[in-house]
């Protein structure tokens, strides 16, 4: 599998480290404990398109949001996680 880092270009999967579901949002500090438990532990785990966090750990250190099909491993989009996060917080604001 190869991931096209938006900064470095396509690289082998061994340059990246995986975290998981990128659709989860860290609850606000005043959110109930249950919201945090849901955030930390529960997943949609879809068979199909999955937005997920990877870090280009052996490269530019960027965290990335990769859109990948978990049935075929085909990658349709790779974005810088920071951009996604900034857009999301703007959207929320």
């Amino acid at each position: 599998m190869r991931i096209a880092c938006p900064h470095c270009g396509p690289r082998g999967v061994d340059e990246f480290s995986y975290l998981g579901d990128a659709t989860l949002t860290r609850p606000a500090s005043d959110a109930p404990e249950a919201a945090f438990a849901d955030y930390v532990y529960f997943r949609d785990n879809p068979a199909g398109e999955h937005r997920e966090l990877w870090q280009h750990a052996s490269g530019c250190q960027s965290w990335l949001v990769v859109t990948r099909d978990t049935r075929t491993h085909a990658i349709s989009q790779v974005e810088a996680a920071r951009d996604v996060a900034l857009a999301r917080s703007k959207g929320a604001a």
Partner: protein
Amino acid sequence: MSTDRYSIFSVLREALRGHTGWKPAWRSPDPKPSYDVVIVGGGGHGLATAHYLAKTYGVRNVAVLEKGWIGGGNVGRNTTIVRSNYLLAGNIPFYEHSMKLWEGLEQDLNYNAMVSQRGVVNLFHSDGQRDAYVRRGTAMRMHGVDSELLDVAELKRILPMLDFDNARFPIKGALRQKRGGTVRHDAVAWGYARSADGFGVDIIQNCEVTGFRIEDGRIKGVETSRGFIGAGKVGLSTAGNSSRVAAMAGMRLPIESHVLQAFVSEGIKPFIDTVCTFGAGHFYISQSDKGGLVFGGDIDGYNSYAQRGNLPTVEDVCEGGMAVMPQIGRVRMLRSWGGIMDMSMDGSPIIDATPVQGLYLNAGWCYGGFKATPAAGDCFAHLIARDAPHPVAAAYRLDRFATGRLIDEKGVGAQPNLH
């Protein structure tokens, strides 16, 4: 006349008549309109659950629904290791229950699954690792499970092919569970299927569950590719597909599906007669009765339903193998395969009722599902039949993530790719 019971005598008798008298190991019935219990998933766990439901708990109006062919999931794609060398109180009694069931399995099923207690040896390479293994071995002893510490001299005797002289991370000893070992994986599925079938359980292959009928919070049956099948109770035992199946019932699980690759070499004459795990890299190995070296390492580390992995993991495993056992360099890897692991968020399984009345969940086995097969079957059957958890599986609750009573053997937290 057909032959039902397996024994050396029946084999000899059949040998004399060209083996024409053997019956199918299980029937291929059409589904009945309804059952007392429907088990979704004809893998090792589902079939074992059916066996124990029928044999131990007397529930015999049972169907096992399998979307493909039975035993085609992880029970047919693993490295066949059985052991109960766990650390935590939530796990040890369960896996030891499983170990005991393995020890009597063949007589229970009248099927030789080649349960081979050849021992499981976990190498350690530092004082810290040794202490962690002592803690584990002591916990095992306190639960009545066998464990022993091996020094290097002893290791050299039983595993002379290890690299004792030139290793980057010198081998300093090992923890061994002598009663651990391997079991012929396919035979487990077939043995349970044949036994359950013998008790009247319907094993229905090529029958995919497409939905659940739930009324007033209570399960009524399952929609399938072969039509609706009514059920008083439904047990989910779908391993890597647990999240997908649970989603049909409106549930989200603390599970990610990951791919784990494993490998087998060409058959060679007896080379290693125990299971051995490397403590400074991702590699474990045993040898099958056919002579193949069966080995594996870590999961690929990303969500996947594809039943195949990628090259870096293959290389990583072989690198580990060469680091600890450089004598296998010229043995050839023959086949690789990938299984979908239901990685729970603390690395331990879930056997619990769900918010839907009559719907039960057996999931989150990570890569430990095979060794758990008998106990998972027994405990899941207990839960379904009696609506109460089996005492050895009492910790495997779905609410432990919210309460913080986690069972995290590895201490890596909610990151399944590290379990």
